[in-house]
């Protein structure tokens, strides 16, 4: 499967269907095991996830990028449960880039069917995307999919290794395999003799595993379902050099880049005379390429990072114009124009909305408009990558904290003119991802710069300013809502229009410029069209606003703003109908007991119905995203110098919970991430340039602002949901609704700090 096929998956559902027809045979084929290469070096590979050395070192290769969400622990636990080796005795390694580690679950988010839609068309489209993930070998970490995707294959990997170890023992001792058992890293014979896995590994790893292995019943689990200590915790509290930023190779050069601050604009001229005079500067090179959506710019290569940073400031450069309106106001006007005049598609269109409103009594109609700004990812670790092109130009090595290793591999191989089979991507730990590290810009530039220095590794580090002003931003979005309240106050018609630049189109321009995005982008309405609210007449319009600012995947994607839009509006409806927002939601959720249970649980936790503490007020919100049903209550307090967030309660139902400690940590993280955005984040433009350049102007919540966070996990849902993102969407509207309850002021525009002060 070459580039063309891989590239078609992004286009949309039509192309996905085509891809399956084209490559059906490929679905049945097992991808090559990248760990086979280790056989000579003492590791006996059982499958792409497990190796065991002769002296009993059991290694698990984690096929997803560890960016704080705990995959380097949870995915190891999946193997440990079946392999009968304690998690703490397993050597955890991050797997290299390889087609064998395809992610099929992440693709589910690409189909324009909500999580609740279990109809034939929705299910067959999901089945198709599962196959597509395999065919195209997309190894990626995103869409809160890692545990869901690994749940079956990694348990199976542990079980297969265990059974082949038993087979080897059975052969060696001429004992029937069903008389053998396994425990604590050894096969046990009927007489109690223990044969360590290491003593059997060489023979066992050469055997074909049985095909009829039954995975253990959850009622017998001893590892899964329990909180595991993180495998990477010791490294992270001792400052171990595990991040891309920490890569250090012999003879390494250090580089930084400076691209046009008008994103996508060209570099008209540059003069590096002063920069070249700086002691320690090795070269200043033009890294612009025609037709690249990132625009023009240059790199400084030096003996150390600081010298590169300093010299980059001395380059005299003339930047060209941006391909988008030059101010935030002009951009928002363009999005507003799409909202008012654009036509979109309807991922949800129940009943007959036009007729419902045509006959409506005006005093029963509620209307509101909302908007959110662009947002940066602002990962703690700025973008960086290290590349080494061999002296003969035949081999390329990349060290990077990437969320999309096989896409990075393909992109860098192409950039360097090296065959993909001679390109090797080593994935480091990631100092935050949030969707930013799915992008290819930072690995492509590292490769381009290293190409100028064959035989020498070059580490390219972006300054914080470069990182914040050259993101693929969470898009700005606007929406208009109207509801017709029924006699009991509950809406009988909802009409939502959502206008937003298309992430799909923008990403395609960056990853695969030879292709065009066609058709709708369902992520625009994600979190609005797919919620468990039953309303007789319900229409959601998904409208693409054509603005060329690069936009990308940001923790929870469309849910991050549609959660705010929809849940603020439901709150407005409740107040207009003089209903308790809890009762309003319970009524809307009447067909979804899982949703009702979550919101009732959080109401209990927060003592929702108890009299409010003087000076405090609570707000509620609910979002189903990435298969997880999340209800939250935020409590705020009025203080002399502004509003404080005092408590957050969260009830989340993701179905079966694999690691409660890590799940709670992820929800807590998602909540702080969402509240941070609401408290004061906005990316704005003047003269085509992003005005927020560092944490002094684009800050996030600090410890003194952080509320007490109370989390309970439910396990009612019948499908396993994700955990990395679903905490974020409801936190933002729950805060806005709490502020309305406290102050009577309805804030319909983010960030809230534009309208009020926070302590």
């Amino acid at each position, binding site marked *: 499967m070459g580039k063309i096929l891989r590239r078609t998956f992004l286009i949309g559902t039509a192309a996905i269907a085509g891809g399956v027809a084209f490559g059906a045979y490929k679905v049945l084929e097992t991808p090559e095991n990248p760990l086979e290469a280790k056989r000579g070096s003492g590791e006996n590979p059982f499958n792409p996830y497990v190796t065991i050395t002769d002296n009993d070192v059991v290694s698990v290769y984690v096929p997803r990028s560890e960016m*704080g969400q705990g995959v380097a622990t949870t995915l190891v636990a999946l193997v440990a449960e079946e392999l009968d080796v304690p998690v703490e005795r397993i050597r955890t390694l991050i797997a290299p880039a390889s087609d064998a580690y395809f992610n099929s679950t992440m693709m589910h988010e690409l189909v324009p069917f909500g999580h609740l839609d279990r109809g034939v068309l929705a299910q067959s489209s999901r089945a198709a995307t599962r196959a597509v993930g395999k065919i195209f070998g997309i190894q990626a970490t995103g869409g809160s999919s890692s545990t869901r995707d690994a749940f079956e294959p990694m348990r199976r990997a542990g079980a297969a290794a265990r059974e082949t170890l038993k087979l080897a023992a059975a052969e060696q001792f001429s004992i029937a395999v069903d008389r053998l058992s396994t425990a604590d890293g050894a096969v046990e014979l009927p007489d109690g003799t223990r044969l360590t896995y290491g003593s059997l590994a060489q023979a066992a790893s050469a055997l074909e595993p049985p095909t009829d292995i039954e995975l253990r019943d959850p009622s017998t689990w001893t590892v899964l379902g329990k909180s595991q200590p993180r495998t990477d915790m010791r490294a992270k509290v001792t400052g171990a050099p595990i*991040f891309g930023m920490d890569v250090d190779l012999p003879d390494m050069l250090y580089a930084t880049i400076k691209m046009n601050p008008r994103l996508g604009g060209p570099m008209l001229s540059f003069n590096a005379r002063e920069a070249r005079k700086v002691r320690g500067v090795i070269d200043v090179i033009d890294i612009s390429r025609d037709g690249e959506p990132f625009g023009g710019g240059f790199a400084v290569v030096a003996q150390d990072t600081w010298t590169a940073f300093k010299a980059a400031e001395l380059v005299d450069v003339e930047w060209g114009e941006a391909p988008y309106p030059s101010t935030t106001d002009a951009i928002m006007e363009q999005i507003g124009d799409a909202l008012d005049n654009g036509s979109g598609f309807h991922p949800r269109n129940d009943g007959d909305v036009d007729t419902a409103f045509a006959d409506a009594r005006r005093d029963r109609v509620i209307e509101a408009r909302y908007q959110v700004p662009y947002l940066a990812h602002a990962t703690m670790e700025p973008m960086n990558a290290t590349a080494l092109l061999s002296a003969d130009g035949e081999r390329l090595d990349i060290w990077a904290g990437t969320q999309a290793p096989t896409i990075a591999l393909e992109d860098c191989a192409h950039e360097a003119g090296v065959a993909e089979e001679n390109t090797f991507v080593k994935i480091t730990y990631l100092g935050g991802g949030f969707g930013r590290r799915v992008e290819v810009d930072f690995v492509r530039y590292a490769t381009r710069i290293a190409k100028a220095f064959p035989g020498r590794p070059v580490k390219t580090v972006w300054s914080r300013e470069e990182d914040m002003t050259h993101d693929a931003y969470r898009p700005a979005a606007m929406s208009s809502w109207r509801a017709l309240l029924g006699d009991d106050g509950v809406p009988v018609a909802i009409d939502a229009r959502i206008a937003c630049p298309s992430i799909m189109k923008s990403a395609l321009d960056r990853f695969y410029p030879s292709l065009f995005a066609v058709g709708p982008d369902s992520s625009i309405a994600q979190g609005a069209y797919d919620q468990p609210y039953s309303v007789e007449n319900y229409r959601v319009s998904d409208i693409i606003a054509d603005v060329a600012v690069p936009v990308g995947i940001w923790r929870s994607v469309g849910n991050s703003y549609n959660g705010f839009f929809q849940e603020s509006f439901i709150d407005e409806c409740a107040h207009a109908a003089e209903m308790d927002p809890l009762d309003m939601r319970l009524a809307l959720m009447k067909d979804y007991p899982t949703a009702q249970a979550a919101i009732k649980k959080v109401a209990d936790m927060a003592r929702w119905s108890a009299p409010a503490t003087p000076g405090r007020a609570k707000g509620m919100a609910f979002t189903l995203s990435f298969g997880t049903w999340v209800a939250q209550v935020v409590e705020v307090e009025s203080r002399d110098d502004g509003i404080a967030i005092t408590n957050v309660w969260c009830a989340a139902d993701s179905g079966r919970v694999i690691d409660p400690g890590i799940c709670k940590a992820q929800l807590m993280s998602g909540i702080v991430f969402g509240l*941070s955005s609401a408290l004061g984040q906005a990316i704005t433009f003047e003269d085509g340039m992003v005005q927020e350049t560092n944490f002094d102007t684009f800050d996030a919540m600090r410890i003194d602002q952080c509320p*007490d966070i109370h989390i309970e996990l439910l396990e009612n849902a019948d499908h396993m949901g994700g955990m990395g993102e679903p905490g974020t969407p409801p936190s933002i509207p729950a805060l806005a609704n709490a502020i309305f309850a406290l102050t009577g002021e309805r804030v319909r525009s983010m960030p809230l700090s534009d309208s009020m002060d926070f302590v």
Partner: protein
Amino acid sequence: MIDLTINGEERSLDVDGEMPLLWALRDVAKVKGPKFGCGIAACGACTVLVDGAPTRSCVTPMETVEGAQITTVDGLAVGETLHRVQEAWIAEQVAQCGYCQSGQIMSAVALLNEVPNPTDEDIDDAMSGNLCRCGTYPRIRAAIKRAAEQNSAVKPETVEG
């Protein structure tokens, strides 16, 4: 040449006097614990102790730390024995991505050296300069309190400045 002591080891580094301590540590001395996050003392990921005082190494020129004692997160453990703050961080399972935690831990060590039993307000004051994008703050707070309890349970110890 600028002489200083890094985690108990005397070093002589051939660097420009204006080079921030952070980059001298990372790129020249190859001490990778302190992290680069912002370069303007706004995030705290680069926090180290300079003669015992918590310091943003990204804005501290090398010429100002001649002869100083530098302690980074890399130098907290004694052999295999972790510092009690590191132990508390593990017990509370604080870190997620972990990138900011070197700086968080150094700020916490400095706080506990100064205030053995910090109040929530003390923690806010000492720690609000350390950003965490994963939002681990509730666990950071719990870990500091745990380390403080450990501190009063055993003899107060001093950390090399």
